[in-house]
């Protein structure tokens, strides 16, 4: 077998490469008198980190990067994740020394620019969601959910309404919803979807009682559908004294098309790393700001940014403050500032018309794919979809090819796979989210690929079953990985 170019050979890990005495960084000389040594009880004996030179570090990580698919290099229609183009200017401004180089606790006078940016972003997100107030302190969507459901809990408790122990969550919900509700101490009650993929109103009415704290609704749902009963859902929940939480992870479909606050939601989070295009970074960082209506605003997580106006000269100054009944601090400082800078920049670049164009094109692209493939791939809910379409690979399954295998085969065609087997209520689900930032040509190429794979499922099923064939590694043994976990490099495990 051919080796892969010495240093750049990614099969050797850092510790495999480590050579005693190699140096990756030169540190400055000590320029003060040395202090007495630390008590030996506190000193470590050995530090088992690698010893490699700077070129090796650069070459190793650069070569590793090339093993990834990414938006910059591949169409990435991973449903529910909004893998849209991430503008480079957003990264550039986030790295400005006046942003990246400032300390979270430096005096407010030394960080007015940063605070003003946060303040404006709060206003923007409040406007986009049709809510009254926003906290930027939460670091991801799930983190926002936790804050939001804690707020709902705090609200009920503040009113002495302590019997509300249940949280209604649709069967199509993302796993973070029940997990967050559980972290906030709620018992999760599953709400079924009806035949059209909407919330089953009858079932909802059944659980709507004085033990219901509220419901967590994803809009559009993870089926990629706009719940056409949404007004009734909110009404039913409100009538029983509950609150409606909006999982805004799918807001790319609704930017400027509908406001959650107006529809009746009491609180929601946004996924800035999805809708507002901050890069996903291989799994983060994100940001999950929480926006809410009047009644929940006092409970927002701390801190929020306030503008304090000097009554003398009318000049405003920005400060951090804690809402009156805050659920408390939920992260170390003031949120993922670098992500917030990017989202702010994105909104400033697009304005209202741009945001509306995003939702329009995101939804259009998804419907185009839906129409082009629904003769071949089963479509459990045959209606206009929103930003994503959920197919089922049931018909392929009949020919011995699973949804997973169809997805894996797409990798050979140079496309990232859709989200597979989610939402759980669709058998052999393939959840495709093209986003607005892809061209018609790409959509067509992707459609062609899925049609070709369907044909292969008939003509050469093994080809699909054993896909992918052209990737850096083939199908990996996940079962053994979980049964006998190897979670770090060990000398013995070296190849």
């Amino acid at each position, binding site marked *: 077998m051919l080796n892969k170019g010495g240093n750049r050979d990614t099969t050797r890990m850092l510790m495999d490469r480590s050579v005693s005495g190699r140096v990756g960084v030169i540190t400055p000389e000590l320029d003060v008198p040395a202090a007495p040594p630390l008590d030996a009880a506190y000193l470590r004996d050995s530090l088992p980190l690698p010893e490699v030179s700077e070129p090796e570090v650069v070459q190793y990580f650069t070569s590793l990067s090339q093993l990834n698919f990414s938006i910059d290099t591949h169409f990435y229609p991973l449903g529910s994740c909004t893998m849209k183009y991430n503008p480079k200017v957003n990264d550039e401004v986030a790295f400005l020394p006046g942003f990246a180089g400032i300390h979270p606790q430096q005096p407010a006078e030394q960080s007015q620019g940063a605070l003003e940016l946060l303040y404006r972003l709060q206003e923007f997100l409040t406007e986009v969601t049709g809510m009254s107030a926003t906290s930027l302190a939460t670091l991801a969507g799930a*983190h926002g959910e936790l804050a939001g459901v804690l707020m709902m809990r705090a609200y009920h408790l503040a009113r002495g309404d302590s019997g509300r122990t249940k949280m209604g969550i649709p069967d199509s919900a993302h796993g973070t919803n029940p997990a967050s509700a559980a972290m906030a101490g709620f018992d999760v009650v599953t709400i079924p979807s009806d035949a059209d993929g909407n919330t089953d109103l009858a079932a909802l009415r059944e659980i709507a009682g004085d033990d219901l704290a509220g419901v967590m609704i994803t809009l559009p749902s993870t089926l990629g559908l706009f719940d056409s009963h949404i007004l009734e859902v909110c009404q039913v929940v409100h009538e029983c004294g509950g609150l409606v939480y909006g999982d805004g992870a799918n807001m790319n479909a609704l930017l400027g098309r509908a406001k959650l606050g107006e529809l009746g939601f009491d609180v929601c989070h946004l996924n800035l790393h999805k809708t507002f295009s901050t890069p996903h970074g291989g799994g983060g960082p994100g940001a999950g700001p929480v926006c809410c209506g009047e009644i929940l605003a006092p409970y927002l*997580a701390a801190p929020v940014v306030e503008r304090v106006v000097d009554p003398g000269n009318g000049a405003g100054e920005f400060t951090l403050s804690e809402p009156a009944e805050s659920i408390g601090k939920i992260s170390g400082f003031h949120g993922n500032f670098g992500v917030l800078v990017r989202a702010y920049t994105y909104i400033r670049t697009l304005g209202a018309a741009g945001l509306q164009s995003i939702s329009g094109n995101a939804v259009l692209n998804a419907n185009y794919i839906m129409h082009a493939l629904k003769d071949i791939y089963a479509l459990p809910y045959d209606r206009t979809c929103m930003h994503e379409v959920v197919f089922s690979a049931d018909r392929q399954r009949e020919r011995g090819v699973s949804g997973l295998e169809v997805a894996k085969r797409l990798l050979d065609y140079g496309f990232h796979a859709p989200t597979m087997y989610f939402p759980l209520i669709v058998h052999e689900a393939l959840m495709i989210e093209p986003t607005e930032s892809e061209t018609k040509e790409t959509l067509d190429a992707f459609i062609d690929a899925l049609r070709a794979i369907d044909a292969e499922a008939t003509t050469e099923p093994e080809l699909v079953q054993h896909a992918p064939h052209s990737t850096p590694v083939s199908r990996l043994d996940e079962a053994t990985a979980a049964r006998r976990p190897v979670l770090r490099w060990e000398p013995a495990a070296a190849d």
Partner: protein
Amino acid sequence: MVTNFQSHYIPNTPAEQDDLLAAIGLRNIDELFADIPDGYRNPTLELPAPLSELEIQRELNELAARNRPLASGPSFLGAGSYHHFIPSIVKAIMTRGEFLTAYTPYQPEVSQGTLQVIFEFQTMISALYGMEVANAGMYDGATSVAEAVLMACRVTRRQQVIVADTVSPAYRQVIATYCQAQGITIDITPADQVTGAITEATAGIVAQYPNFYGSLEDLQALGEAAHADGALLVVSADPLAMGMLKPPGEFGADIVTGEGQPLGIPPSFGGPYLGLFSCKQQYIRQMPSRLVGRTTDTEGRTGYVLTLQTREQHIRRERATSNICTNEALYALASSIYLAAMGRNGLRQAAELCYHKAHYAAAEIGKLDGYSLPQSGAFFQEFVVSCPQPPAEVNRRLMERNILGGLDVSDRFDNGMLLCVTEMNTRAEIDALVSALSEIA
């Protein structure tokens, strides 16, 4: 009806959009939104008009210019976010599109880059903390220690946790937030009384190392006391200090968390940072968030996958070990590059520079009339100074000399100011601080 705006981020033109619409049998984009109830559709969005990139750059540069970067003058503020050196290679590599614009490695065949990096990260964080396993999926130092508290309760099936009062106030608040709905009692206890407070109901005790005020706790004693009553020792430890300090793992800690920011991540007004989380092997099935494991492919080649996913929300839902999904993977990459470059010797040297410079500064300030060091005992890079005037006033006057002073900790120490000195502070800067303080006295 919404006006169309041809953004440079949206390729398809109105004509192409019409083609797509025609293919699906619609006339305009609005028809796609018919499910939105009348009266709620196409609300006005009050946002400022869009800007060109040129204008965006200008606006953001103006906002940035109204903040004082740490590097623009001597800065001695730490207290949970630190000014350390970051090699240029970190940004050069982490901004590569293949890393930056990928997502969670759900498809391992086309995500080996991200997966192998995480495996490196788990390896190096375990090594730093002297622990058996580390994950890669926590938000920041504060939430990491909060998750550790929840995990200690899961592991021990107990509901009471003792937190030393020398743990960061922010961390204590976040622990409280995370535990508020779980029926967990949090006792904030003076650090020297923690061992005495442990009972058989105690799920775990939480200490910080170095503690928030810079000093080194006696982890050995804490660990022994905790274990004697079946409680876990949870430590939040500064990973850069691990360059010279004996790691919590060697003192018997059960869960070690930390704020990863010192490892190659800019202060960035508080985020994005990186939660570190490690524990003993026996507890892995109770760990929150993401783990990557090594395995082989159908041809026997080594490869990496997300593993033990049954702990996670997308499988286990309300019974998951945490609700975390998106986390801070890009910064796990950043800190992996940082640690690889610093390596065994560089990290030790960096830690030693902090140690010696901080001790020099403390000694010099301690000599000044009106100033004293209220804490005795070993410390790393942070220390409290009692000032002759309120810290807010001292800081104001330092800033007149373009020196960023320390955190006001007068709630705990008389006119106390928490100062931090790292390898970024030259002797000239330290001397400038000392002489400025002497003038302010």
